[in-house]
């Protein structure tokens, strides 16, 4: 239903996001294309479709895809190719890719397997339109954050502190408190960046300057850092990001 009118997403001004729909069911492809296309009011979204996992792999290897809407069963029911088992292969091609499995199966074992292998989420094909739109929107935000995190750490070796500003300010401002998992992810990044800056600079104004933040914002973040001993560390290596 189109009863809700969400406000424009702050991520919209950031970058184009490309969604790839992989499903051998023409009805589902068209349905998801329309639902994802609805988000063009909120994001700069480009939607592509294909009908086989092999096509998906070829597209992923040649084009920047941010979100994959993935079916589970491809081909005949009795001898189908399991899309869930291909999740690691998709992520190996593009580590910041977010994968939302949309399957005809509501078996908990499939859901657990998909999430364990790295899917962002799992929906059934009978899910309400609004739920599918919401999950796509959440996954796009995570894709945006993941891509920015990768970019920042890939730039880290070049000492470009302005990318820190992107990480610290924009995601925190756009996610609010609606998505605790994402908030935790960004705060763990914030903690790491602040700790690194504290090792290099002794005064708040120097830290603020290095990170491209105001002094007041820096003081607030530093005090939160001191108060928040529960934030878990973020392990990041070049080209790969893991949240513990």
């Amino acid at each position, binding site marked *: 239903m189109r009863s809700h009118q969400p406000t424009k997403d702050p991520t919209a001004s950031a970058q184009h996001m490309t969604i790839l729909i992989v499903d*051998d069911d*023409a*009805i*589902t492809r*068209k*349905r998801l294309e329309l639902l994802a296309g609805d988000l063009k009011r909120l994001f700069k979204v480009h939607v592509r479709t294909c009908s086989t996992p092999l096509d998906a792999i070829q597209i992923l290897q040649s084009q920047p895809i941010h979100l994959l809407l993935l079916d589970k069963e491809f081909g005949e*029911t*009795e001898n189908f190719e399991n899309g869930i088992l291909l999740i690691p292969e998709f992520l190996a091609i593009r580590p910041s890719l977010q994968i939302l499995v949309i399957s005809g199966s509501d078996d908990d074992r499939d859901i657990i397997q998909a999430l364990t292998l790295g899917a962002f989420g799992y929906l059934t*094909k*009978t899910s309400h339109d609004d739920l599918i739109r919401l999950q796509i929107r959440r996954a796009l935000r995570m894709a945006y954050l993941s891509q920015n995190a990768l970019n920042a750490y890939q730039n880290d070796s070049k000492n470009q502190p302005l990318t820190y500003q992107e990480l610290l300010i924009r995601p925190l401002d756009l996610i609010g408190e609606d998505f605790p998992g994402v908030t935790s992810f960004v705060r763990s990044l914030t903690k790491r960046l602040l700790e690194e800056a504290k090792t290099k600079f002794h005064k708040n104004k120097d830290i603020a300057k290095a990170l491209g933040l105001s002094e007041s914002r820096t003081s607030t973040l530093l005090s939160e850092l001191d108060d928040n001993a529960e934030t878990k560390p973020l392990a990041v290596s070049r080209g790969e990001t893991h949240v513990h």
Partner: protein
Amino acid sequence: MSINPSKMRHDLSSVISGLRTAIALSDGKDSIDADGKQLIVLSLKRLEIIYQSLSEKNPGTLDGSHDA
């Protein structure tokens, strides 16, 4: 070839979801747009395949792959 209940359930859920979305797309509008119409046509085609598979003359249609 026999009718596969799992396949039929899967196909019917796809048809139902497709038609629901097509109806939702027309909410607040006087007519159904081209996208909604395409979704309805795809759903109708799938229903025809299901219907044919249930006829005595052609019981195995549902065992085929999807219309990729």
